[in-house]
């Protein structure tokens, strides 16, 4: 025992204090709105017990489960990767599920929906305009030979990957869209998220679609309506840094327009992989529909 006692000292035992007992109660001041009944959003207060790891989302769910089931919130993964729970918490754009209540250092937590997008209900906004803009910038690899083979990859070095890697982390939460000053008045502005994705795909060494994407972003409501306010990057919960990407995109437009247009996309790997294609499988598939199981 003594020996193992010794060994134990090599590890710090995680400190999970404050998980079981509430540390304090906090007032959640939540914006409520029902388009059928209300003309303007209004705030309602709820008292929520807070534990050490209680997040704003946990608090909202506590309200929903115990105090007021009519609160409408959008959430899913509760671990900061799905992008559902974008809100403005104490004046700042945040993911509710990634915001620890205690870290706000405040006894009042004000929660309201993100800006610049239509408001459906309480904390739920309509992100369709936002997704449409994402679609507009053609967020996919553009080249002729994507489906030419399915047994080999396009080569890309780790360095080439690094060029755009940080931009791939965008979870489409809309926080940057809410923070950006231009989106606050320009309904047609593509927005930081879409522009960052336009750059991400344009700079991807496998892509040859620069010309098409340039046409989209080089528009009166495109990339030039960004004034490097940086609010997008400051708001982004995933370190995507749209402000960086957008300035780089401007640079491409100003100085490398033609070079990018005629850039050769990354070549395919020479080595061919083994495998079966769907066509082969479907060919060998018996055509008649299987009958219901005959249990034994």
């Amino acid at each position, binding site marked *: 025992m003594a020996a193992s006692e010794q060994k134990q000292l090599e590890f710090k035992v995680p400190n999970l204090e404050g998980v079981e007992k509430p540390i304090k109660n906090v007032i959640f001041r939540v914006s409520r709105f029902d388009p059928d009944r209300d003309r303007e959003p209004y705030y309602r207060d709820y008292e929520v017990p807070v534990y050490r790891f209680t997040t704003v989302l946990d608090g909202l769910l506590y309200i929903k489960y115990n105090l007021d089931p009519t609160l409408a919130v959008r959430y899913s993964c509760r671990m900061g990767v799905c992008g559902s729970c974008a809100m403005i918490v104490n004046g700042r754009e945040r993911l509710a599920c990634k915001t620890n209540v205690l870290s706000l250092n405040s006894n009042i937590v004000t929660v309201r929906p993100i800006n610049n997008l239509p408001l459906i209900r309480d904390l739920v906004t309509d992100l369709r305009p936002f997704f449409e803009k994402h679609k507009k910038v053609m967020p996919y690899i553009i080249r002729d030979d994507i489906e030419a083979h399915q047994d080999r990859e396009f080569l890309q070095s780790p360095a080439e990957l690094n060029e755009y890697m940080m931009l791939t982390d965008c979870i489409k939460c809309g926080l940057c869209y809410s923070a950006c000053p231009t989106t606050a008045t320009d309904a047609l502005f593509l927005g930081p998220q879409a522009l960052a994705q336009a750059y991400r795909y344009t700079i991807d060494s496998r892509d040859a679609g620069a010309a098409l994407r340039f046409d989209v972003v080089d*528009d009166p409501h495109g990339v030039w309506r960004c004034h490097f306010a940086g609010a997008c990057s400051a708001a982004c919960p995933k370190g995507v840094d749209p402000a960086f990407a957008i300035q780089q995109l401007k640079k491409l437009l100003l100085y490398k327009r033609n070079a990018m247009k005629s850039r050769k996309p990354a070549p395919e790997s020479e080595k061919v992989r083994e495998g079966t294609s769907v066509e082969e499988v479907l060919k060998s598939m018996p055509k008649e529909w299987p009958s219901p199981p005959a249990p034994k």
Partner: protein
Amino acid sequence: MVRESTLMWIQYITGLGILVLGALHFASLTFLVQGGYPNALSYANVVYDRYEDPLWAAALEAFLALLSYHVFNGFRVLLLELNQGSGWTKAVNVTMALAAIAAFLYGTRTILVFHLGGAI
């Protein structure tokens, strides 16, 4: 249609030009003038030393040209962000272009009247 990036490229370049010519303009009103600023705006100073000097006039004219473009393109940007819709966009574009030209012509009259010998 002119590309937005071309318009903005000109915006930057005119901006740089304005910075240089603006510094000159500023200097011409202060330390380049005998007696400094209190003296700079007298009719004699303004007309004989600057407007009638072809070099000064050319610099001022260039300054004006750059500014006309830059400022009204700047206003255009601002207005396009304020409101949208195809009618609005067209109205802003046309108005700002006309305003830039008007400002340029009006300013030009001031600068060149001395060289055109009262033709205006």
